[in-house]
Protein backbone atom coordinates (compact mmCIF):
# COMPACT_ATOMS: atom_id res chain seq x y z
CA UNK A 1 0.00 0.00 0.00
CA UNK A 2 2.67 2.42 1.06
CA UNK A 3 4.90 1.47 -1.85
CA UNK A 4 2.12 2.00 -4.35
CA UNK A 5 1.20 5.27 -2.69
CA UNK A 6 4.76 6.52 -2.69
CA UNK A 7 4.79 6.18 -6.47
CA UNK A 8 2.29 9.04 -6.44
CA UNK A 9 4.94 11.22 -4.82
CA UNK A 10 7.47 10.75 -7.62
CA UNK A 11 7.84 13.17 -10.52
CA UNK A 12 6.65 10.36 -12.80
CA UNK A 13 3.16 10.71 -11.33
CA UNK A 14 2.81 14.30 -12.45
CA UNK A 15 3.98 13.51 -15.98
CA UNK A 16 1.51 10.66 -16.06
CA UNK A 17 -1.28 13.03 -15.09
CA UNK A 18 -0.15 15.51 -17.71
CA UNK A 19 0.01 12.75 -20.34
CA UNK A 20 -3.51 11.70 -19.42
CA UNK A 21 -4.72 15.29 -19.74
CA UNK A 22 -3.06 15.58 -23.16
CA UNK A 23 -4.50 12.30 -24.40
CA UNK A 24 -7.93 12.88 -22.90
CA UNK A 25 -9.58 14.35 -26.04
CA UNK A 26 -8.48 11.23 -27.97
CA UNK A 27 -9.93 8.76 -25.49
CA UNK A 28 -13.03 10.76 -24.58
CA UNK A 29 -16.30 9.20 -25.73
CA UNK A 30 -17.58 12.42 -27.24
CA UNK A 31 -16.95 16.12 -27.60
CA UNK A 32 -19.21 16.89 -24.66
CA UNK A 33 -16.81 15.13 -22.29
CA UNK A 34 -13.93 17.24 -23.59
CA UNK A 35 -16.07 20.31 -23.04
CA UNK A 36 -16.86 19.29 -19.45
CA UNK A 37 -13.18 18.69 -18.77
CA UNK A 38 -12.23 22.08 -20.23
CA UNK A 39 -14.86 23.71 -17.98
CA UNK A 40 -13.46 21.86 -14.98
CA UNK A 41 -9.96 23.12 -15.84
CA UNK A 42 -11.21 26.71 -16.11
CA UNK A 43 -12.76 26.46 -12.66
CA UNK A 44 -9.63 24.78 -11.35
CA UNK A 45 -7.57 27.83 -12.38
CA UNK A 46 -9.94 30.07 -10.40
CA UNK A 47 -9.74 27.69 -7.42
CA UNK A 48 -5.93 27.98 -7.52
CA UNK A 49 -6.42 31.71 -7.07
CA UNK A 50 -8.65 31.10 -4.08
CA UNK A 51 -6.00 28.73 -2.75
CA UNK A 52 -3.44 31.56 -2.67
CA UNK A 53 -5.48 34.01 -0.59
CA UNK A 54 -7.49 31.51 1.46
CA UNK A 55 -5.36 28.36 1.48
CA UNK A 56 -1.95 29.95 1.87
CA UNK A 57 -2.63 33.38 3.31
CA UNK A 58 -5.62 32.32 5.42
CA UNK A 59 -8.03 35.09 4.40
CA UNK A 60 -11.45 33.75 3.39
CA UNK A 61 -12.33 35.77 0.30
CA UNK A 62 -16.01 35.45 -0.60
CA UNK A 63 -15.78 37.88 -3.53
CA UNK A 64 -13.80 35.40 -5.59
CA UNK A 65 -16.72 34.51 -7.88
CA UNK A 66 -17.25 38.24 -8.40
CA UNK A 67 -13.71 38.66 -9.71
CA UNK A 68 -14.23 35.65 -11.98
CA UNK A 69 -17.26 37.50 -13.41
CA UNK A 70 -15.28 40.72 -13.76
CA UNK A 71 -12.68 38.84 -15.81
CA UNK A 72 -15.41 37.31 -17.98
CA UNK A 73 -17.27 40.61 -18.45
CA UNK A 74 -14.13 42.62 -19.18
CA UNK A 75 -13.24 40.23 -21.96
CA UNK A 76 -16.85 39.95 -23.16
CA UNK A 77 -17.57 43.67 -23.29
CA UNK A 78 -14.21 44.64 -24.80
CA UNK A 79 -14.60 42.16 -27.65
CA UNK A 80 -18.38 42.37 -28.23
CA UNK A 81 -19.01 46.11 -27.70
CA UNK A 82 -15.67 47.76 -28.29
CA UNK A 83 -14.35 45.63 -31.10
CA UNK A 84 -11.14 44.52 -29.39
CA UNK A 85 -9.71 41.23 -30.56
CA UNK A 86 -9.36 38.40 -28.07
CA UNK A 87 -5.77 38.59 -26.86
CA UNK A 88 -5.60 42.34 -26.10
CA UNK A 89 -8.97 42.01 -24.34
CA UNK A 90 -7.60 39.00 -22.46
CA UNK A 91 -4.69 41.10 -21.19
CA UNK A 92 -7.20 43.83 -20.38
CA UNK A 93 -9.19 41.38 -18.27
CA UNK A 94 -6.06 40.43 -16.31
CA UNK A 95 -5.12 44.05 -15.72
CA UNK A 96 -8.69 44.94 -14.75
CA UNK A 97 -8.99 42.16 -12.15
CA UNK A 98 -5.52 42.94 -10.78
CA UNK A 99 -6.29 46.67 -10.41
CA UNK A 100 -9.74 46.10 -8.93
CA UNK A 101 -8.27 43.41 -6.70
CA UNK A 102 -5.72 45.92 -5.45
CA UNK A 103 -8.38 48.56 -4.73
CA UNK A 104 -10.71 46.12 -2.97
CA UNK A 105 -7.74 44.56 -1.19
CA UNK A 106 -6.37 47.72 0.41
CA UNK A 107 -9.80 48.44 1.89
CA UNK A 108 -11.06 44.97 2.81
CA UNK A 109 -7.78 43.59 4.18
CA UNK A 110 -7.85 46.17 6.94
CA UNK A 111 -10.47 43.88 8.43
CA UNK A 112 -9.61 40.57 10.03
CA UNK A 113 -11.07 37.06 9.97
CA UNK A 114 -14.88 36.95 9.93
CA UNK A 115 -15.14 40.66 9.26
CA UNK A 116 -13.02 40.27 6.17
CA UNK A 117 -15.16 37.34 5.00
CA UNK A 118 -18.40 39.28 5.52
CA UNK A 119 -16.99 42.37 3.83
CA UNK A 120 -15.94 40.38 0.78
CA UNK A 121 -19.32 38.62 0.74
CA UNK A 122 -20.82 42.10 0.35
CA UNK A 123 -18.27 43.03 -2.32
CA UNK A 124 -19.24 39.91 -4.24
CA UNK A 125 -22.90 40.82 -4.04
CA UNK A 126 -22.22 44.41 -5.09
CA UNK A 127 -20.36 43.10 -8.14
CA UNK A 128 -23.39 40.97 -8.97
CA UNK A 129 -25.76 43.93 -8.56
CA UNK A 130 -23.56 46.19 -10.69
CA UNK A 131 -23.50 43.65 -13.49
CA UNK A 132 -27.23 43.01 -13.21
CA UNK A 133 -28.39 46.63 -12.93
CA UNK A 134 -25.86 48.74 -14.86
CA UNK A 135 -27.57 48.01 -18.15
CA UNK A 136 -25.83 50.74 -20.21
CA UNK A 137 -22.50 49.02 -19.62
CA UNK A 138 -23.29 45.36 -19.08
CA UNK A 139 -26.62 44.85 -20.91
CA UNK A 140 -28.07 43.75 -17.56
CA UNK A 141 -30.06 40.55 -17.53
CA UNK A 142 -29.81 40.15 -21.31
CA UNK A 143 -26.14 39.33 -20.96
CA UNK A 144 -23.30 39.70 -23.45
CA UNK A 145 -23.41 37.87 -26.79
CA UNK A 146 -20.96 37.49 -29.65
CA UNK A 147 -17.85 37.34 -27.50
CA UNK A 148 -14.75 36.76 -29.60
CA UNK A 149 -13.05 33.39 -29.46
CA UNK A 150 -9.28 33.36 -28.97
CA UNK A 151 -7.47 34.27 -32.17
CA UNK A 152 -5.41 31.30 -33.31
CA UNK A 153 -3.00 33.29 -35.56
CA UNK A 154 -4.22 31.24 -38.52
CA UNK A 155 -2.80 28.06 -37.01
CA UNK A 156 -5.66 26.75 -34.88
CA UNK A 157 -9.34 27.45 -34.62
CA UNK A 158 -10.23 27.93 -30.97
CA UNK A 159 -13.96 27.86 -31.69
CA UNK A 160 -13.53 24.09 -31.80
CA UNK A 161 -13.73 22.36 -28.44
CA UNK A 162 -10.53 20.36 -28.62
CA UNK A 163 -8.09 23.19 -29.46
CA UNK A 164 -9.71 25.27 -26.75
CA UNK A 165 -9.26 22.40 -24.33
CA UNK A 166 -5.51 22.45 -24.99
CA UNK A 167 -5.39 26.22 -24.57
CA UNK A 168 -7.05 25.93 -21.15
CA UNK A 169 -4.74 23.05 -20.26
CA UNK A 170 -1.71 25.19 -21.07
CA UNK A 171 -2.91 27.96 -18.75
CA UNK A 172 -3.74 25.41 -16.06
CA UNK A 173 -0.25 23.92 -16.22
CA UNK A 174 1.20 27.40 -15.87
CA UNK A 175 -1.13 28.12 -12.92
CA UNK A 176 -0.06 24.94 -11.11
CA UNK A 177 3.61 25.47 -11.94
CA UNK A 178 3.50 28.94 -10.43
CA UNK A 179 1.62 27.67 -7.38
CA UNK A 180 4.29 25.01 -6.81
CA UNK A 181 7.07 27.53 -7.10
CA UNK A 182 5.28 30.01 -4.86
CA UNK A 183 4.58 27.44 -2.16
CA UNK A 184 8.21 26.57 -1.53
CA UNK A 185 9.54 30.09 -1.96
CA UNK A 186 10.15 32.56 0.82
CA UNK A 187 7.14 34.50 -0.43
CA UNK A 188 4.85 31.49 -0.04
CA UNK A 189 6.26 30.84 3.42
CA UNK A 190 5.51 34.46 4.26
CA UNK A 191 1.86 33.93 3.29
CA UNK A 192 1.70 30.78 5.43
CA UNK A 193 3.18 32.68 8.38
CA UNK A 194 0.35 35.20 8.06
CA UNK A 195 -2.19 32.35 8.02
CA UNK A 196 -0.69 31.05 11.28
CA UNK A 197 -1.38 34.36 12.96
CA UNK A 198 -1.15 38.08 12.34
CA UNK A 199 0.70 38.88 15.55
CA UNK A 200 3.30 36.16 15.19
CA UNK A 201 3.90 37.12 11.54
CA UNK A 202 4.40 40.75 12.52
CA UNK A 203 6.81 39.80 15.27
CA UNK A 204 8.82 37.98 12.58
CA UNK A 205 9.15 41.28 10.74
CA UNK A 206 6.51 40.57 8.10
CA UNK A 207 4.60 43.55 6.75
CA UNK A 208 1.03 42.25 6.94
CA UNK A 209 -0.72 44.68 4.64
CA UNK A 210 1.80 44.51 1.83
CA UNK A 211 1.87 40.72 1.77
CA UNK A 212 -1.88 40.28 2.15
CA UNK A 213 -2.57 42.72 -0.68
CA UNK A 214 -0.03 40.92 -2.87
CA UNK A 215 -1.72 37.56 -2.18
CA UNK A 216 -5.13 39.11 -2.83
CA UNK A 217 -4.08 40.64 -6.16
CA UNK A 218 -2.53 37.32 -7.24
CA UNK A 219 -5.76 35.53 -6.38
CA UNK A 220 -8.03 37.99 -8.21
CA UNK A 221 -5.75 37.83 -11.24
CA UNK A 222 -6.11 34.04 -11.27
CA UNK A 223 -9.89 34.51 -11.04
CA UNK A 224 -9.80 37.06 -13.87
CA UNK A 225 -7.73 34.69 -16.01
CA UNK A 226 -10.23 31.90 -15.46
CA UNK A 227 -13.17 34.24 -16.10
CA UNK A 228 -11.70 35.49 -19.36
CA UNK A 229 -11.06 31.93 -20.58
CA UNK A 230 -14.61 31.04 -19.58
CA UNK A 231 -16.05 33.94 -21.60
CA UNK A 232 -13.92 32.92 -24.60
CA UNK A 233 -15.20 29.38 -24.33
CA UNK A 234 -18.96 29.80 -23.81
CA UNK A 235 -19.04 33.15 -25.68
CA UNK A 236 -22.26 34.16 -24.00
CA UNK A 237 -22.34 35.38 -20.42
CA UNK A 238 -24.96 36.79 -18.06
CA UNK A 239 -25.15 38.22 -14.53
CA UNK A 240 -25.40 34.69 -13.15
CA UNK A 241 -21.63 34.34 -13.60
CA UNK A 242 -21.33 36.61 -10.55
CA UNK A 243 -23.73 34.52 -8.47
CA UNK A 244 -22.39 33.94 -4.96
CA UNK A 245 -23.04 30.20 -5.47
CA UNK A 246 -20.00 30.04 -7.71
CA UNK A 247 -17.84 31.24 -4.81
CA UNK A 248 -19.22 28.56 -2.53
CA UNK A 249 -18.75 25.93 -5.25
CA UNK A 250 -15.10 26.92 -5.47
CA UNK A 251 -14.70 26.76 -1.70
CA UNK A 252 -16.14 23.23 -1.82
CA UNK A 253 -13.69 22.20 -4.55
CA UNK A 254 -10.85 23.62 -2.48
CA UNK A 255 -11.90 21.90 0.76
CA UNK A 256 -12.48 18.54 -0.89
CA UNK A 257 -9.23 18.61 -2.84
CA UNK A 258 -7.12 19.93 0.01
CA UNK A 259 -6.82 23.54 1.08
CA UNK A 260 -3.31 24.98 1.01
CA UNK A 261 -1.90 22.13 -1.08
CA UNK A 262 -0.64 22.19 -4.63
CA UNK A 263 -2.64 19.41 -6.25
CA UNK A 264 -5.75 19.87 -4.11
CA UNK A 265 -7.53 22.49 -6.23
CA UNK A 266 -7.15 20.38 -9.38
CA UNK A 267 -8.25 17.09 -7.81
CA UNK A 268 -11.15 18.70 -5.96
CA UNK A 269 -12.47 20.59 -8.96
CA UNK A 270 -12.11 17.81 -11.53
CA UNK A 271 -13.43 15.22 -9.09
CA UNK A 272 -16.54 17.12 -8.08
CA UNK A 273 -17.34 18.31 -11.59
CA UNK A 274 -17.31 14.70 -12.80
CA UNK A 275 -19.28 13.39 -9.83
CA UNK A 276 -21.88 16.09 -10.43
CA UNK A 277 -21.96 15.15 -14.11
CA UNK A 278 -22.42 11.47 -13.46
CA UNK A 279 -25.25 12.19 -11.03
CA UNK A 280 -27.07 14.35 -13.59
CA UNK A 281 -29.66 11.61 -14.21
CA UNK A 282 -30.88 12.04 -10.63
CA UNK A 283 -31.64 15.70 -11.34
CA UNK A 284 -32.52 17.56 -8.14
CA UNK A 285 -32.17 14.40 -6.04
CA UNK A 286 -28.45 14.21 -6.69
CA UNK A 287 -27.85 16.35 -3.61
CA UNK A 288 -29.11 13.42 -1.53
CA UNK A 289 -26.01 11.51 -2.57
CA UNK A 290 -23.71 14.47 -2.89
CA UNK A 291 -24.50 16.00 0.51
CA UNK A 292 -23.66 12.96 2.69
CA UNK A 293 -20.57 12.35 0.56
CA UNK A 294 -19.31 15.81 1.41
CA UNK A 295 -20.12 15.40 5.09
CA UNK A 296 -18.16 12.13 5.26
CA UNK A 297 -15.24 13.67 3.46
CA UNK A 298 -15.05 16.64 5.79
CA UNK A 299 -15.28 14.37 8.85
CA UNK A 300 -12.66 11.85 7.78
CA UNK A 301 -10.42 14.00 5.60
CA UNK A 302 -10.55 17.46 7.16
CA UNK A 303 -7.57 18.56 5.11
CA UNK A 304 -9.05 17.27 1.89
CA UNK A 305 -7.83 14.44 -0.28
CA UNK A 306 -4.35 15.82 -0.93
CA UNK A 307 -3.70 17.17 2.54
CA UNK A 308 -4.69 13.96 4.31
CA UNK A 309 -2.69 11.89 1.85
CA UNK A 310 0.46 13.97 2.35
CA UNK A 311 0.26 13.77 6.14
CA UNK A 312 -0.25 10.02 5.98
CA UNK A 313 2.68 9.60 3.58
CA UNK A 314 4.95 11.71 5.73
CA UNK A 315 4.26 9.72 8.89
CA UNK A 316 4.71 6.44 7.04
CA UNK A 317 8.02 7.44 5.56
CA UNK A 318 9.28 8.64 8.95
CA UNK A 319 8.25 5.36 10.53
CA UNK A 320 9.57 3.07 7.80
CA UNK A 321 12.86 4.70 6.93
CA UNK A 322 15.95 3.00 8.42
CA UNK A 323 17.64 5.15 11.03
CA UNK A 324 20.42 6.37 8.79
CA UNK A 325 18.11 7.26 5.97
CA UNK A 326 15.77 8.92 8.39
CA UNK A 327 18.44 11.41 9.26
CA UNK A 328 18.61 12.47 5.63
CA UNK A 329 14.86 12.50 5.32
CA UNK A 330 14.56 14.84 8.19
CA UNK A 331 16.40 17.57 6.44
CA UNK A 332 14.28 17.11 3.38
CA UNK A 333 11.03 18.80 4.21
CA UNK A 334 7.45 17.78 3.60
CA UNK A 335 6.63 20.91 1.66
CA UNK A 336 9.55 20.49 -0.63
CA UNK A 337 8.57 16.95 -1.32
CA UNK A 338 5.13 17.98 -2.30
CA UNK A 339 6.49 20.71 -4.49
CA UNK A 340 8.98 18.37 -6.12
CA UNK A 341 6.44 15.72 -6.88
CA UNK A 342 3.66 17.97 -8.02
CA UNK A 343 4.93 21.29 -9.27
Amino acid at each position, binding site marked *: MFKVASLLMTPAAKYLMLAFAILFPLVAANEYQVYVMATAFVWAIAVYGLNIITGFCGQLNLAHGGFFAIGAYTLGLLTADYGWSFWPAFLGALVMTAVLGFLVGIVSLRLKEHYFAIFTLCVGFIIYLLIDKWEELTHGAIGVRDIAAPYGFGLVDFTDTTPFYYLVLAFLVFAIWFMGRLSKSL*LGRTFIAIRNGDELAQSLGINLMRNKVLAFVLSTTYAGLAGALYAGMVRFIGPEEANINHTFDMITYLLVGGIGTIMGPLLGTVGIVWITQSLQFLEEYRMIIFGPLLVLLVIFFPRGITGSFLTWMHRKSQALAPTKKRQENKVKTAQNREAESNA
Partner: protein
Amino acid sequence: MLKVENVTKMFGGLAAVSDVSVEFEAGRINAIIGPNGAGKSTFFNLISGLHQPTSGRILLDGVDVTSLPSDQVARLGVGRTFQTTNLFEQATVLDNLIVGHRLRTKSGLWDVLINSKRLQREEKAARDKAMEALEFVGLTSVAGQLITDITQEERKRVAFALALATDPKIVLLDEPAAGVNPEETVGFAALMRKMVDEKGLTVCLIEHKMDMIMSLADKIMVLDHGEKIAEGTPEEVRNNPVVIEAYLGGDEDAAA
Protein backbone atom coordinates in the same frame (compact mmCIF):
# COMPACT_ATOMS: atom_id res chain seq x y z
CA MET B 1 20.12 48.66 25.34
CA LEU B 2 16.37 49.06 25.82
CA LYS B 3 15.13 52.13 27.61
CA VAL B 4 11.49 52.66 28.52
CA GLU B 5 10.56 56.17 29.66
CA ASN B 6 7.30 56.94 31.46
CA VAL B 7 5.25 54.66 29.26
CA THR B 8 1.49 54.58 29.77
CA LYS B 9 -1.07 52.53 27.87
CA MET B 10 -4.77 53.26 28.30
CA PHE B 11 -7.48 50.92 27.07
CA GLY B 12 -10.50 53.20 27.26
CA GLY B 13 -10.45 54.43 30.85
CA LEU B 14 -8.28 51.60 32.10
CA ALA B 15 -4.55 52.05 32.49
CA ALA B 16 -3.07 48.66 31.55
CA VAL B 17 0.43 50.08 31.94
CA SER B 18 0.90 53.23 33.94
CA ASP B 19 3.95 55.48 33.86
CA VAL B 20 6.53 52.69 33.76
CA SER B 21 10.20 53.56 33.33
CA VAL B 22 12.88 50.90 33.20
CA GLU B 23 16.17 50.19 31.53
CA PHE B 24 17.30 46.76 30.38
CA GLU B 25 21.04 46.35 30.10
CA ALA B 26 22.66 44.44 27.29
CA GLY B 27 23.72 40.86 27.96
CA ARG B 28 21.51 40.42 30.98
CA ILE B 29 18.47 38.35 31.84
CA ASN B 30 15.69 40.68 32.89
CA ALA B 31 12.51 39.28 34.39
CA ILE B 32 9.12 40.89 34.70
CA ILE B 33 6.88 39.43 37.35
CA GLY B 34 3.55 40.37 38.82
CA PRO B 35 0.10 38.99 39.53
CA ASN B 36 -2.28 38.08 36.70
CA GLY B 37 -3.57 41.18 34.92
CA ALA B 38 -0.65 43.31 36.07
CA GLY B 39 0.05 44.46 32.51
CA LYS B 40 3.08 42.29 31.80
CA SER B 41 2.02 41.07 28.37
CA THR B 42 0.75 44.55 27.46
CA PHE B 43 4.18 45.84 28.39
CA PHE B 44 5.75 43.39 25.93
CA ASN B 45 3.25 44.38 23.26
CA LEU B 46 4.23 48.01 23.72
CA ILE B 47 7.93 47.28 23.32
CA SER B 48 7.43 45.07 20.28
CA GLY B 49 5.13 47.59 18.62
CA LEU B 50 1.92 45.54 18.58
CA HIS B 51 0.38 48.32 20.66
CA GLN B 52 1.29 51.99 20.59
CA PRO B 53 1.78 53.63 24.00
CA THR B 54 -0.66 56.38 24.98
CA SER B 55 2.31 58.39 26.24
CA GLY B 56 6.00 57.91 26.96
CA ARG B 57 8.99 56.85 24.90
CA ILE B 58 10.73 53.58 24.08
CA LEU B 59 14.36 53.67 22.94
CA LEU B 60 16.26 50.76 21.45
CA ASP B 61 20.00 51.44 21.44
CA GLY B 62 19.18 55.14 21.47
CA VAL B 63 16.75 54.89 18.53
CA ASP B 64 13.18 56.00 19.23
CA VAL B 65 10.94 53.05 18.35
CA THR B 66 7.86 54.28 20.22
CA SER B 67 5.54 54.60 17.25
CA LEU B 68 7.07 52.04 14.89
CA PRO B 69 4.86 49.13 13.75
CA SER B 70 5.92 45.75 15.06
CA ASP B 71 7.36 44.41 11.80
CA GLN B 72 9.83 47.29 11.76
CA VAL B 73 10.64 46.84 15.44
CA ALA B 74 11.41 43.18 14.65
CA ARG B 75 13.74 44.26 11.87
CA LEU B 76 15.61 46.46 14.34
CA GLY B 77 16.37 43.38 16.40
CA VAL B 78 13.51 42.70 18.81
CA GLY B 79 12.51 39.04 18.70
CA ARG B 80 9.67 37.66 20.77
CA THR B 81 7.64 34.61 21.68
CA PHE B 82 4.00 34.43 22.72
CA GLN B 83 2.26 32.48 25.46
CA THR B 84 0.88 30.27 22.72
CA THR B 85 2.49 29.99 19.33
CA ASN B 86 0.34 29.05 16.35
CA LEU B 87 2.48 27.00 14.02
CA PHE B 88 1.72 25.26 10.73
CA GLU B 89 0.70 21.91 12.24
CA GLN B 90 0.94 19.84 9.07
CA ALA B 91 4.39 21.08 8.08
CA THR B 92 7.73 19.99 9.46
CA VAL B 93 9.57 21.78 12.23
CA LEU B 94 12.19 22.97 9.75
CA ASP B 95 9.55 24.26 7.32
CA ASN B 96 8.04 26.31 10.09
CA LEU B 97 11.36 27.90 10.96
CA ILE B 98 12.58 28.94 7.53
CA VAL B 99 10.29 31.98 7.44
CA GLY B 100 11.99 33.27 10.59
CA HIS B 101 14.79 34.74 8.53
CA ARG B 102 12.40 36.31 6.00
CA LEU B 103 12.87 39.79 7.44
CA ARG B 104 16.55 39.74 6.44
CA THR B 105 15.72 38.88 2.81
CA LYS B 106 14.38 40.91 -0.10
CA SER B 107 13.02 38.47 -2.71
CA GLY B 108 9.63 39.37 -4.11
CA LEU B 109 7.11 38.12 -6.64
CA TRP B 110 9.40 38.63 -9.62
CA ASP B 111 12.16 36.55 -8.01
CA VAL B 112 9.66 33.72 -7.58
CA LEU B 113 8.60 33.89 -11.24
CA ILE B 114 12.11 33.73 -12.68
CA ASN B 115 13.61 31.74 -9.77
CA SER B 116 16.35 34.34 -9.46
CA LYS B 117 19.82 33.81 -8.08
CA ARG B 118 18.93 36.14 -5.23
CA LEU B 119 15.94 34.00 -4.27
CA GLN B 120 18.02 30.81 -4.31
CA ARG B 121 20.73 32.43 -2.24
CA GLU B 122 18.29 33.86 0.25
CA GLU B 123 16.38 30.60 0.57
CA LYS B 124 19.58 28.78 1.34
CA ALA B 125 20.51 31.41 3.91
CA ALA B 126 17.07 31.13 5.52
CA ARG B 127 17.33 27.34 5.64
CA ASP B 128 20.81 27.47 7.14
CA LYS B 129 19.65 29.99 9.71
CA ALA B 130 16.71 27.74 10.61
CA MET B 131 19.02 24.74 11.06
CA GLU B 132 21.38 26.82 13.15
CA ALA B 133 18.52 27.96 15.40
CA LEU B 134 17.27 24.37 15.70
CA GLU B 135 20.71 23.21 16.71
CA PHE B 136 20.94 25.99 19.27
CA VAL B 137 17.70 24.95 20.97
CA GLY B 138 18.65 21.28 20.68
CA LEU B 139 15.98 20.11 18.27
CA THR B 140 18.00 18.96 15.27
CA SER B 141 16.67 15.44 15.71
CA VAL B 142 13.03 16.45 15.13
CA ALA B 143 13.71 18.83 12.20
CA GLY B 144 11.81 16.58 9.81
CA GLN B 145 8.81 15.82 12.00
CA LEU B 146 5.44 17.43 11.65
CA ILE B 147 4.60 20.02 14.31
CA THR B 148 1.51 18.06 15.25
CA ASP B 149 3.72 15.07 16.18
CA ILE B 150 6.10 16.81 18.61
CA THR B 151 5.73 17.37 22.35
CA GLN B 152 4.61 20.50 24.17
CA GLU B 153 8.12 21.16 25.37
CA GLU B 154 9.49 20.80 21.84
CA ARG B 155 6.89 23.26 20.58
CA LYS B 156 8.10 25.80 23.09
CA ARG B 157 11.64 25.27 21.89
CA VAL B 158 10.48 25.73 18.29
CA ALA B 159 8.99 29.08 19.31
CA PHE B 160 12.39 30.02 20.78
CA ALA B 161 14.12 28.96 17.57
CA LEU B 162 11.69 31.00 15.48
CA ALA B 163 12.51 34.12 17.47
CA LEU B 164 16.24 33.36 17.21
CA ALA B 165 16.06 32.91 13.43
CA THR B 166 15.16 36.61 13.10
CA ASP B 167 18.70 37.51 14.27
CA PRO B 168 17.52 39.54 17.25
CA LYS B 169 19.55 41.65 19.67
CA ILE B 170 16.98 41.32 22.39
CA VAL B 171 14.37 38.61 22.88
CA LEU B 172 11.10 39.02 24.75
CA LEU B 173 9.87 35.69 26.10
CA ASP B 174 6.29 35.55 27.35
CA GLU B 175 6.03 32.77 29.95
CA PRO B 176 8.56 30.44 28.31
CA ALA B 177 8.21 27.79 31.01
CA ALA B 178 4.43 27.76 31.36
CA GLY B 179 2.93 24.29 31.10
CA VAL B 180 6.17 22.33 31.19
CA ASN B 181 7.31 20.07 34.00
CA PRO B 182 10.04 20.98 36.56
CA GLU B 183 12.84 19.12 34.78
CA GLU B 184 12.00 20.79 31.49
CA THR B 185 11.86 24.13 33.30
CA VAL B 186 15.49 23.66 34.27
CA GLY B 187 16.25 22.98 30.61
CA PHE B 188 14.61 26.24 29.57
CA ALA B 189 16.52 28.18 32.21
CA ALA B 190 19.76 26.72 30.86
CA LEU B 191 18.70 27.63 27.32
CA MET B 192 18.08 31.25 28.28
CA ARG B 193 21.43 31.43 30.02
CA LYS B 194 23.02 30.01 26.88
CA MET B 195 21.36 32.71 24.75
CA VAL B 196 23.07 35.35 26.85
CA ASP B 197 26.43 33.61 27.23
CA GLU B 198 26.91 32.24 23.73
CA LYS B 199 24.95 34.60 21.54
CA GLY B 200 25.38 37.75 23.60
CA LEU B 201 21.64 38.37 23.53
CA THR B 202 19.65 40.41 25.98
CA VAL B 203 16.83 38.33 27.39
CA CYS B 204 13.64 39.73 28.83
CA LEU B 205 11.06 37.32 30.18
CA ILE B 206 7.69 37.21 31.86
CA GLU B 207 7.36 34.27 34.19
CA HIS B 208 5.34 33.01 37.13
CA LYS B 209 7.71 30.28 38.26
CA MET B 210 9.44 32.09 41.12
CA ASP B 211 12.13 29.55 41.89
CA MET B 212 13.27 29.69 38.29
CA ILE B 213 13.21 33.50 38.18
CA MET B 214 15.08 33.89 41.44
CA SER B 215 17.97 31.74 40.32
CA LEU B 216 18.05 32.89 36.71
CA ALA B 217 17.35 36.61 36.48
CA ASP B 218 20.00 39.29 36.82
CA LYS B 219 17.33 41.89 37.40
CA ILE B 220 13.64 41.77 38.20
CA MET B 221 10.91 44.33 37.65
CA VAL B 222 7.62 43.85 39.48
CA LEU B 223 4.38 45.15 37.96
CA ASP B 224 1.07 45.40 39.78
CA HIS B 225 -2.07 47.02 38.36
CA GLY B 226 0.03 48.42 35.54
CA GLU B 227 2.47 50.17 37.83
CA LYS B 228 6.07 49.35 38.57
CA ILE B 229 6.16 48.63 42.29
CA ALA B 230 9.69 47.33 42.60
CA GLU B 231 12.90 46.72 40.71
CA GLY B 232 16.21 45.16 41.59
CA THR B 233 18.19 41.99 42.04
CA PRO B 234 16.33 38.81 43.03
CA GLU B 235 17.54 39.30 46.57
CA GLU B 236 16.22 42.85 46.79
CA VAL B 237 12.88 41.98 45.26
CA ARG B 238 12.40 38.93 47.44
CA ASN B 239 12.69 41.00 50.59
CA ASN B 240 10.70 43.98 49.38
CA PRO B 241 7.59 44.36 51.58
CA VAL B 242 5.60 45.99 48.77
CA VAL B 243 6.18 42.97 46.57
CA ILE B 244 5.23 40.57 49.33
CA GLU B 245 2.08 42.59 49.87
CA ALA B 246 1.20 42.47 46.13
CA TYR B 247 1.48 38.71 46.12
CA LEU B 248 -1.05 38.60 48.99
CA GLY B 249 0.24 35.50 50.67
CA GLY B 250 3.19 37.21 52.29
CA ASP B 251 6.57 35.50 52.72
CA GLU B 252 5.76 32.15 51.35
CA ASP B 253 4.55 33.17 47.89
CA ALA B 254 7.17 35.77 47.24
CA ALA B 255 10.04 33.66 48.37
CA ALA B 256 8.97 30.23 47.22
